[in-house]
């Protein structure tokens, strides 16, 4: 655990971050403190980066079965700058708008990054949800078929972004469940 230079964030930066993200001032400052504690010593916080492993072991993400995908989606070149962390916290905050959350949820769930959530992605999602590898093939294929029957509107065996958006907009639980608090603990 290193200590960056203890630069207090300039208030113009704070204003800007507050205008551009869905986080409140308090939350931004808490994330700033957490970031400072984790980044390597002797660096200005705007230039420091965190590795994916460091972000994955944050308390908010430690037990999340999708943490590697979350880190992949929000990092640039496998490292997290402070603004990347803020962007991630903003998407997962309570005030974020649904369209933003759905957009990023789609990217997170698209394991093979082909722009679609296809059967392979769905199976991997289910395996992650159940957190075990010995799941019967029947359960997987049955479930995948049900999901595709319900949400795949143009019958191409994949969920495009619009279909995913439509399915999630119908479900009020999505907004409730797609929230992470990156501060305060």
């Amino acid at each position, binding site marked *: 655990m290193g200590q960056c230079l203890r630069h207090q964030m300039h208030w113009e930066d704070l204003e800007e971050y507050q205008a551009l993200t869905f986080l409140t001032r308090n939350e931004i400052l808490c994330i700033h403190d957490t970031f400072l504690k984790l980044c390597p010593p002797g660096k200005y916080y705007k230039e420091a980066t965190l590795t994916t492993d460091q972000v994955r072991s944050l308390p908010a993400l430690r037990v999340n079965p999708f943490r590697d995908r979350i880190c992949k989606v929000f990092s640039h070149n496998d490292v997290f700058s402070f603004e990347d962390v803020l962007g991630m916290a903003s998407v997962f905050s309570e005030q974020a708008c649904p369209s933003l959350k759905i957009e990023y949820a789609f990217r997170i769930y698209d394991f093979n990054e082909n722009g679609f959530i296809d059967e392979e992605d769905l199976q991997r999602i289910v395996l992650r949800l159940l957190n075990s590898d010995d799941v019967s093939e029947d359960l997987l294929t049955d479930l995948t078929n049900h999901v595709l029957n319900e949400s795949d509107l143009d019958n*191409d065996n994949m969920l495009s972004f619009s279909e995913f958006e439509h399915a999630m907009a119908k479900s009020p639980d999505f907004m409730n469940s797609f929230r992470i608090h990156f501060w305060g603990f």
Partner: protein
Amino acid sequence: MAQPLNFVLNVAETPEDHGQEPSPYDESEVHDSFHQLIQEQSQWVAEEGLELQQREPGAGGPETSGSGQQALPGPEDALVHSTATLRILASMPSRTIGRSRGAVICQYYNRSVRLRRRVSRPELKGVGRSARPSLRLYDLELDPAALQEEEKRFLLVKELQGLPVAQRDHMLRGMPLGLAEKRCLREESQTPTGKQRGRQGPRGLFPCCGRLRDACVLALHSLGLGLLAGLHALRPWRYALKQIGGQFGSSVLSYFLFLKTLLAFNALLLLPLLAFIVGVQAAFPPPAPPGSAPSFTGLELLTGGGRFTHTVMYYGYYSNSTLNQPCAPPLAGGQCSREAAGLPYSMPLAYLFTVGLAFFITCITLVYSMSHSFGESYRVGSTSGVHAVTVFCSWDHKVTQRRASRLQHDNIRTHLKELLAEWQRRRGSRSACGRLRWVAVRGLVWLLSLGTTLGCTVAVYAFSELMIKSPVSAEQEGALLALPVVVCLLNLGAPYLFRCLAALERHDSPVLEVYVAVCRNLILKMVILGILCYHWLGRRVGALKDQCWENFVGQELYRLVVLDFIFVLLDTLFGELVWRLISEKQLKRREKPEFDIAGNVLELIYGQTLTWLGVLFSPLLPAIQIVKLLLVFYVKKTSLMANCQAPRRPWLASHMSTVFITLLCFPSFLGAAIFLCFAVWRVKPSSTCGPFRNLDSMYEAGKVWVRHLEEAGPRVSWLPWVHRYLVENTFPVYLVSALLLAVIYLHIQVVKGQRRVICLLKEQISNEGEDKVFLINKLHSVYERKERSSPVGTDASPGLSSPSRLELEGGQPGLPSARTHCCAVYPHRVDNL
């Protein structure tokens, strides 16, 4: 499959050499914001060679796995789509949403243009005949001059400059771009003058003044930040709620949020009462009754009588005259002449109107929050899609503890298994014998439950009659606790009995189980409360003819509230703590008892109903309810952390929140409002105490006031007119009801229409999907045939190295060019040519 088409594909030429800067496509065919994407993909494709694997991460060359509905080549053939096909597929807009930065920028540029021009959808005929791949709103550029990404970005910045600051920030916040990108956009889109102003600052005569000013501003700002942080920390229970959510998930959290909502309602109720009734009467205390006040014993806290009887707590304390004007009241509740100084304050009127106003505000707030909650949780056509919802939304990302996450995994596994089992059961038909048995079991259990409810009701009624027949003297105040104790015991014991009975009926869906349990408990509680209301207003009024029956009812309700709290504590103690100890020590199970969300919420609703029933007779009852809710919060939270685990059943948190607030509004608040109306309109107030003594009904105070206003003069004559024609007349009520019914019918029809439109649109999308697959296969077969016919060597180039015009076999070369541009994804249906 359709016959071979007269289909002429107009495909542009591409450079043979792959390494060149690719501007291979006719700009009119492919939206060139995917320029970058195609660049990437062509590089990858060249690297991997012609043979593409089926699923290559990041290859960006998705191939359809085929829907099996068309006569496709088998899956092995589908593997090797030609690179040409893949290139075209890769440039389809539906596959690049969200992936390319250029696409996102273009999408938001178009959105902001739309915002400015307020055009909802570009007309089809406005689009040139050039084969734009997509007519979708987001990606269409009406201007045929195609632009590079940089130019697009410049245009976006210009659009952002045109927006007001708040809207611009709102748009930037919602863009799925990185924060660094957004900062650049924001900086660029700030108007130049604003930026300069920000940078330079006012150049005063003395530069040190500027620095001093900056320092002051900074200090003030950090003070402001500190204050804000303090205020945030003060927000009640923020940390506790986060802790609960992190450890137990949204379902248990919904109970605590409901508790917070009830606190807000009680505070809202208490404020007008404190301001207009309690405070005023406390400032002008009435003459003390003859005889000394009884001394304070501890029993008053439980019974509410004794020392508390002649205090602001109860109805009997309030005077029936006009305060601040020392004159003998000539008429009941009448106003004195206006010679005395100071504001005359008529207590009866104030009492009546304040209670009415408090209820009205509560009603409006309840209906608003109920409709808001309903709007958030209900969607047209949302009953289907359970599996998709489970897969994508069932993981609660808020959970941060290892134990809770393990529990979530288990819950999801159980839930998925149940879902699939239910599906299989639904598919398998039940035999007639099985169905009969199903109906019989359910009928029996319902009969038993309703029988239990009836038994409890009869017990309460009998006990209350017994209490009337044997009146309690002043020394035996403790005996007054008997009826509330009986009621609370029944309320505590019967739900356990219901739970045992419910174990007999094995329900298919766990959500239905919860609803049925809530229903039965609710019926029990409401029927018992109904019997008690009849007992008070019907029997007690007669029994306590010359005494203050309102005080008695107020005290009864106080006793019920306090004893309910004590029994909640006991239930928490025995239901959770002792059960956990027993199960750990004796039964040696590591399982903790589940937190019963539905039961606890119903307890809260019951307590709130008692408060609403008692407001008329005991204006300080909401304050006691507030104290009780605060204590219940801490007790439940401690017990939850120590003894319980999250429920194993899946819990649709948002739906259940809507159900709870609806239950709070309909049986609970509505019942209390009916009770209040009956008490105000129909029951004769006692003649020895309270602000309405010597009146025939509480409502008469209002009527007397209106009569006085009529005599007062013509200037306020509209009020008596309103009273006579709108309040006392029944016609406006019928009119308003008819209007309301018409509005409801209209909304029902609108929802029905929307459902039908959704079905049609789904069918249309499915048809378009079929078209798309058909076209892709046609494309594939065209290129395959071409590759087979041309010599092998030229296949090295991945481009569309083809002559400009291709013809399918069976087609005629001299076809009109009207069909050449059928490349659009949403063409006319081509398979019935």
